[in-house]
């Protein structure tokens, strides 16, 4: 009966989709901006900018990207 969803839940986006997504910050080469899943968001491994994933749709628009030092709620 126990739900171990913390370990077994499907990722917010598939791994092979995540592998081709990149951060769009002009401060680093596009191809360097590999993203990692962080909670319900994607975080750039280089600059720390975060991108929301809305019901499985990553929002990769720069205008909506969340700076490393900002909270998601304040963005």
């Amino acid at each position, binding site marked *: 009966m126990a739900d171990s969803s913390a370990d077994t839940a499907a990722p917010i986006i598939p791994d092979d989709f995540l592998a*081709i997504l990149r951060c769009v910050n002009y401060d680093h080469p596009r191809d360097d901006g590999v993203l990692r899943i962080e909670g319900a968001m994607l975080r750039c491994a280089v600059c720390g900018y975060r991108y929301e994933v809305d019901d499985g749709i990553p929002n*990769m628009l720069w205008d909506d990207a969340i700076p490393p030092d900002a909270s998601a709620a304040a963005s």
Partner: protein
Amino acid sequence: MTRAAFANRVAAYAASPTHREGPTLDLTVDLAGPLRGALALDVSTGPGFTAHALAAAQARTVAADVALPMLRHARGAAPQRLWTAASDTQRLAFADGAFDVVTCRHAFHHYANGPAAAAEMARVLAPGGRLVITDTISPDDPAAAAAMHVIEQTRDPSHVRNWTAAALVQVVERAGLRVERTEHTGTAQEFDAWCARTGVDAAVRAHLWRRFVTDPAPRAAFAARQTGGTRRFVWPVLVVAGVRPA
């Protein structure tokens, strides 16, 4: 402007025959080349008709657009093999060389910086990958082009510019791609439905139609005519396929 405009046009674009079907869709898929097993990106996907066609041809397909409501619609009607991402074509959020195929159908005229968009589409293509741009084109006759530009920007403020066929081919070449094939076709429009898609009211519609048919240059270039109670025209379309050198 464009992002907000398209967020409010989901229903109109989803019902648009121009976007849903026809020779421009068939040619786009044809010029995309072998699709089975390919990884494809359809930029500015709108309601997703082109992305769906690519996926139906067995390509794993990413549908991208700046408008999340469009993407939700595209995904809602999606076959298998479709991913969606909010992404600006002039600043694509994808890895270099990620895709075997990139398509851009009925969208290039919306880009503020067409060459930047083409460069981005070329960047995400793998060596040997193929870009297909399908778009309405500007007539070579400057008078017809100028008249239509005014008509189109009045109808749709998100419109930026149409390119002539030669200029669009040049944009693809300058993005570093080898132009492999071009096809000319056209998209037949019912003028009133075309105006309704962007919410143009009756008074403006009547003004635009008068402009269309009293000026001989656009009337001839776009075959504008009224048959029965229906006002029609045909917009020439270019489909251009470019290949990234291996």
